[in-house]
């Protein structure tokens, strides 16, 4: 498929998205979906939002490729201080975008509307603040910042600038999570009593390093100076969902972390276990590891009437409706005939996992993880010059919760929510 064909099909997608966003009762209550009701842009260059991409590593590349398919976006500048990424950025944009090694030079471009920041975590705060001060709208990948003070500084710079901000928490735009929210708000599963989430992988999470002096630069996720590892790179997504559904932030957090498998010189934990305390006695239990992938990733929202599994996109009723009488009768006959009669067996039934199949939350075409829709929302908001409400709050709540977890494990104590922050 040629780029023109991709863009045309993308235009159709944007039209459908606009109709859907305008008609859905679920989405009408979510302010960050409002930019998607806008009609797709025309072919005029003035309709296009001029973007600069800062950081064209794996995530930056994915975002760039999605943005290139958007007829309302022009990638006018790219920036990366690592030569292979720099060259890749030029290649992706067919040499049409201005290329920089220093993001400050990119920010000096007067005809740039917005920037997309997809750099390592420790650079986010500095770049976001500089971008706001350079009068640019900002899309920043999660997590937003490295520590509490940086969150406050970014939020302050954002408010002072009056610019548009979007955070890379794509579940805010993923259909199963939106439908799940509907079920949560309608009381289908009852009040949330516990949230359990996990993210398991079985790989070292390393990138190939061409020379040893580049180890820390390329594998920045493993070093405390640059990242909070599993917490900011993975856990922040599920913490954001928990905050969103509970409409709250965690009051405190405790946890343990260790490096028990990948003992290759990394500084950040390869397995973490945490408990977050929310208002009304609700807890979120979180764990993550990179030495076993049997259970993959999931967030389970649990209440007395049901369970929602956001990543699988399913809901399970705690008390499913009874099967028809004749089905029950035949099942009973089957059990009577084929099941073994226990002699001297246990006098209780073990509380094993219920083997119910559940119901899918979403049955429409929007099957992606939300990243593409999120970028459309950002571009539309920039074009319309209207802020996306709630984004800074989601960025700060999710990111601060992730940082709290890291601090709790490192300091081996309960970490309280930083109430003093002006965010």
């Amino acid at each position, binding site marked *: 498929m040629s780029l023109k064909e991709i863009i045309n099909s993308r235009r159709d997608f944007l039209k459908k998205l606009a109709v859907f966003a305008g008609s859905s009762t679920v989405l009408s209550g979510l302010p960050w979906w409002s930019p998607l009701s806008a009609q797709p842009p025309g072919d005029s260059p003035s309709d296009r939002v001029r973007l600069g991409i800062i950081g064209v590593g794996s995530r930056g590349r994915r975002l760039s490729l999605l943005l290139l398919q958007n007829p309302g976006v022009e990638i006018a500048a790219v920036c990366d201080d690592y030569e292979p990424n720099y060259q890749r950025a030029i290649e992706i944009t067919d040499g049409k975008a201005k290329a920089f090694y220093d993001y400050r030079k990119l920010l000096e471009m007067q005809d740039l509307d917005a920037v997309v920041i997809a750099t390592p975590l420790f650079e986010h705060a500095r770049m976001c603040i500089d971008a706001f001060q350079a009068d640019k709208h900002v899309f920043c990948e999660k997590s937003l910042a490295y520590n509490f003070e940086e969150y406050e500084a970014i939020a302050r710079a954002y408010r002072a600038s009056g610019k548009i901000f979007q955070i890379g928490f794509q579940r805010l735009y993923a259909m199963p999570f939106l439908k799940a929210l509907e079920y949560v708000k309608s009381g289908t599963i009852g009040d949330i009593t516990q949230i359990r989430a996990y993210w398991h992988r079985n790989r070292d999470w390393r990138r190939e390093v061409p020379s040893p002096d580049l180890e820390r630069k390329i594998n920045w996720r493993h070093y405390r100076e640059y990242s909070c590892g599993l917490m900011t790179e993975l856990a922040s997504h599920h913490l954001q969902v928990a905050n969103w559904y509970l409409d709250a932030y965690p009051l405190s957090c405790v946890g343990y972390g260790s490096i028990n498998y990948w003992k290759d010189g990394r500084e950040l934990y390869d397995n973490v276990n945490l408990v977050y305390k929310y208002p009304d006695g609700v807890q979120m239990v979180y764990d993550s590891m990179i030495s076993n992938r049997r259970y993959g990733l999931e967030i389970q929202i649990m209440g007395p009437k049901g369970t929602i599994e956001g990543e699988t996109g399913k809901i399970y009723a705690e008390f499913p409706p*009874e099967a*028809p*009488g*004749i*089905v029950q*009768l035949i099942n009973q006959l089957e059990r009577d005939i084929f099941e073994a009669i226990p002699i001297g067996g246990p006098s209780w039934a073990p509380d094993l996992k219920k083997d119910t199949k559940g119901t899918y939350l979403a049955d429409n075409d929007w099957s992606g993880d939300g990243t593409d829709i999120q970028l459309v929302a950002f571009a539309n908001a920039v074009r319309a010059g209207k802020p996306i409400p709630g984004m800074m709050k989601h960025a700060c709540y999710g990111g601060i919760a992730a940082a709290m977890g890291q601090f709790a494990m490192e300091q081996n104590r309960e970490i309280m929510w930083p109430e003093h922050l002006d965010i």
Partner: protein
Amino acid sequence: MKDFIIKGKTIERELKVLLGCAVFAYLLNIYAIIKHGTSWAELITMLHYVVLLAIAVYVFLWLPRLLIKLIRLLFKSRRSGESS
């Protein structure tokens, strides 16, 4: 190849057995509704299940019926052997 002839009487008998199975399945549905206290609407909504159950019972009955037929044939041939 030898032609098999199915007599009208045989067809009538099989239809009667099938009807019997259908009545049995329908009565079983009524019993199940009463036993499990489910909705009487299931008399209509579970008709597909009743039909399937009737066919299953009909097929299941073939085995004992075949057995009975074989035993009868055996006795018949013995008797005819004794009389000759």
